[in-house]
C-alpha cells in the first residue's frame, strides 16, 4: 500500500482544516501565528486534494475511507470519486486564495481571534459535504458550513451584516430541515442512509409516496443551497454584506454544493426519476440566467452585481446538468470549476476597489472613478470580466462554448436562443461596472486612498483563469473522464459496497 492509494488520504482534506481550526482557536492570543497557521493548514490540505485527484484519475477505482473500520452500510463512509475530487480541488484552491486575501485585508473583522478558525471550519464543512457518502453525515457537514458562514457574515464590518446573517440563517435552517425530512423519508422506505446502498435499493423498488417526497425535499434543500431561481432572494443580500474574503468563498464555491447535490441526485441516488429532475433543472436554470442577468444590470453596488451574476452563472451549470448528455455534464463540471475561480477573483478585486475608496463601500456612488489610479486592478478586472462574459483567451470561453455545443448536439434550440440572449447581459453589466469604476471621472469629493487590501490572491486566480483558458485540454479530458464515471453508477456502488449486495 503506497501513499497514493491509502484510504486515509480521503479523510485528510476534511480533517486538516478541522485540526488547524481547533489549534487556531487555542492560540487566539497570537493573531499573526493564527493567520500563518491557517495558511499552512489550507496549503497542506490543498496538496492532499491534489494528490487525491491524481491518485484516482485514470484508475476507475474511487478511494473509500470507512470511519472506524465499520463496513459500508453501517459505518460512515468518506468516498472520493472523480466528481468529489474535482469539486474538492476547486474548493481548496479558492479557499487558499481566500486565506491569502484575508491576510492582506485591511478589514477590522479579519483581526478578530475567531475569524481564521471559522474560515477553516467553513472549509471543513464544505470539503466534508463533498466527500461524504452518507446523507445524514452530509447534513452534519452542511450545518457546520451554514453556521460558520453565518457567523462570518454577522461579524462583518458592514453594519447590515447581522441583518443579512439573520436572513440567511433562517433560509439555511429551512434547507437543513428539508434534508432531515428527506433523511426520515428515505430511512422509513429503505432502511439505510448510505448513498451507494440507497442507489441499489431505490432502483429495486422506487414506487410509493415516501421516495417521491424524499426527492422533493432533497430538491428543495439543494435549491436553497445553490440559490436557484425562485429561492435566490437571500443570496444577493448575504453575499453583499459578508466580508470580502468570505463573500468570495460564498459566491463561488459554497453555491456549488447545490449543483454537486443535483449531480449526485440525477446520476446516483434517483437514476429512475432523473428525467423529471433534469426537466425542472433546465427550466429553473434558464429562468435564473435571464432573471440574474437582468437584475445584475440594474444594481447599484458592485458586490451585489456580482452576486446576481452568480445566480445567472449557476443557471448555466443547472442547464448543463438538466440537458443530461455526456457533453453537457462535462460542460457543467468545467463551468463550475472555472466560474469559482473567476467569481472569487472578481469579488476580491471588487473588495480591493472598495478598500481603496474614500468611504469603505462597494456602492457605485462611492467607487465611481476610484479605479482611475489603479491600473493593475483595472487590468485584472478587465480580464475577469472577459472570463465572466466568455471571451477568449480566458477559461470562461471554454465552458460557455461547451454548453452551447452540447445544446446544439442535443437539439435544445429554444433553450439555446434564450441563454444565448441572456449571456450577452453578462457583457453589458461587467462592462458597465468596468467603465464606471476604471474609466469615468470621479466626483470632487471622491479620492483614492493610498493603501488597501493586497492583490496577491486575485493576481494568482486571474493567472489561473488565463492558464486554464490557454491550456484547457487536460482539464477537459479530466472532466470527460469524470462524466464517464458518473454515467456508470456501478463504479461508485462497487467501491463502497464491495461484494456485499
Amino acid at each position, binding site marked *: 500500500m503506497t501513499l497514493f492509494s491509502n484510504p486515509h488520504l480521503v479523510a485528510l482534506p476534511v480533517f486538516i482544516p478541522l485540526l488547524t481550526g481547533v489549534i487556531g482557536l487555542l492560540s487566539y492570543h497570537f493573531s499573526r501565528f493564527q493567520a500563518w497557521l491557517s495558511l499552512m493548514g489550507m496549503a497542506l490540505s490543498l496538496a492532499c486534494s491534489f494528490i487525491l485527484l491524481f491518485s484516482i484519475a485514470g484508475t476507475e477505482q474511487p478511494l473509500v475511507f470507512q470511519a472506524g473500520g465499520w463496513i459500508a452500510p453501517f459505518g460512515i463512509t468518506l468516498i472520493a470519486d472523480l466528481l468529489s475530487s474535482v469539486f474538492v480541488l476547486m474548493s481548496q484552491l479558492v479557499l487558499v486564495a481566500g486565506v491569502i486575501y484575508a491576510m492582506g485585508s485591511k478589514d477590522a473583522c479579519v483581526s478578530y481571534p475567531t475569524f481564521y478558525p471559522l474560515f477553516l471550519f467553513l472549509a471543513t464543512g464544505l470539503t466534508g459535504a463533498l466527500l461524504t457518502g452518507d446523507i445524514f453525515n452530509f447534513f452534519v457537514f452542511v450545518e457546520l458550513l451554514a*453556521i460558520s458562514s453565518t*457567523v462570518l457574515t454577522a461579524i462583518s464590518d458592514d453594519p*447590515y451584516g447581522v441583518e443579512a446573517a*439573520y*436572513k440567511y*440563517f433562517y433560509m439555511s435552517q429551512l434547507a437543513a430541515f428539508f434534508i*432531515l*425530512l428527506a*433523511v426520515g423519508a428515505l430511512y422509513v422506505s429503505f432502511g439505510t442512509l448510505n448513498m451507494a446502498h440507497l442507489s441499489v435499493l431505490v432502483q429495486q423498488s422506487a414506487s410509493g409516496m415516501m421516495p417521491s417526497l424524499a426527492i422533493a425535499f432533497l430538491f428543495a434543500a439543494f435549491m436553497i443551497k445553490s440559490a436557484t431561481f425562485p429561492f435566490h432572494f437571500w443570496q444577493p443580500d448575504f453575499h453583499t*454584506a459578508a466580508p470580502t474574503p468570505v463573500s468570495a468563498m460564498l459566491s463561488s464555491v459554497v453555491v456549488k454544493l447545490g449543483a454537486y447535490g443535483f449531480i449526485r441526485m440525477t446520476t446516483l441516488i434517483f437514476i429512475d426519476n432523473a428525467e423529471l429532475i433534469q426537466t425542472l433543472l433546465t427550466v429553473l436554470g434558464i429562468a435564473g440566467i435571464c432573471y440574474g442577468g437582468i437584475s445584475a444590470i440594474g444594481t447599484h453596488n458592485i458586490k451585489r452585481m456580482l452576486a446576481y451574476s452568480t445566480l445567472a452563472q449557476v443557471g448555466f451549470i443547472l442547464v448543463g446538468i438538466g440537458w443530461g448528455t455526456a457533453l453537457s455534464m462535462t460542460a457543467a463540471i468545467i463551468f463550475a470549476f472555472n466560474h469559482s475561480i473567476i467569481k472569487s477573483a472578481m469579488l476580491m478585486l471588487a473588495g480591493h476597489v472598495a478598500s481603496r475608496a474614500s468611504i469603505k463601500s462597494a456602492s457605485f456612488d462611492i467607487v465611481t472613478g476610484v479605479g482611475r489610479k489603479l491600473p493593475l486592478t483595472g487590468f485584472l478586472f478587465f480580464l475577469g470580466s472577459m472570463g465572466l462574459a466568455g471571451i477568449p483567451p480566458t477559461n470562461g470561453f471554454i465552458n460557455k462554448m461547451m454548453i452551447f455545443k452540447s445544446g446544439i448536439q442535443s437539439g435544445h434550440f429554444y433553450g439555446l436562443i434564450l441563454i444565448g440572449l441572456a449571456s450577452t447581459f453578462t457583457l453589458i453589466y461587467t462592462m458597465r461596472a468596468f467603465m464606471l469604476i476604471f474609466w469615468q471621472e470621479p466626483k470632487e469629493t471622491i479620492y483614492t486612498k493610498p493603501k488597501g487590501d493586497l492583490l496577491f490572491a486575485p493576481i494568482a486566480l486571474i493567472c489561473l483563469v488565463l492558464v486554464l483558458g490557454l491550456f484547457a485540454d487536460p482539464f477537459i479530458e479530466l472532466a470527460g473522464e469524470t462524466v464517464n464515471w458518473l454515467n456508470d453508477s456501478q463504479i461508485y456502488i462497487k467501491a463502497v459496497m464491495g461484494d456485499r449486495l
Partner: protein
Amino acid sequence: MEIITAFAIGLTFSVGLFQILRRNVIRSAIGLMLLSNAISLYLLSTGAYIGEKAAYVNQVMGEPVDPFPQALILTAIVISLGLTAFVLAMLYIISKRYKTCDSDALKGLTK
C-alpha cells in the same frame, strides 16, 4: 399510539410554521425551535414502533427497537442546541441595534 404521535408531530409542525411566519423576530425564533423539535419527533417516529425493548440492554425479553433514529436525533438535537444559542445571540444584537423586534423594520439592506 401512532395516531397520537402523528397528531403531536402535525400540531408542533403547524404551530412552528405559523410562528416562523410572524413579524416579531422573537416569535419567529420560537417557531424555528418548534420546527426543529417537530422534525426530531418525526425522525424518532421512523423507528419507534418496531420492537418493544431498549436496544443493547441485556436481561429484558422481547425484540429490540431500532437504535438508529435515536442516534440521528441525538446528533440533530445537539446541533439545534447550538442553533438556538446562536439565534438568541443574533436576536440580542438585533434588538439592541435596531431597538425593535418588528422584522419589517429591519430593512437596511434594501436601501
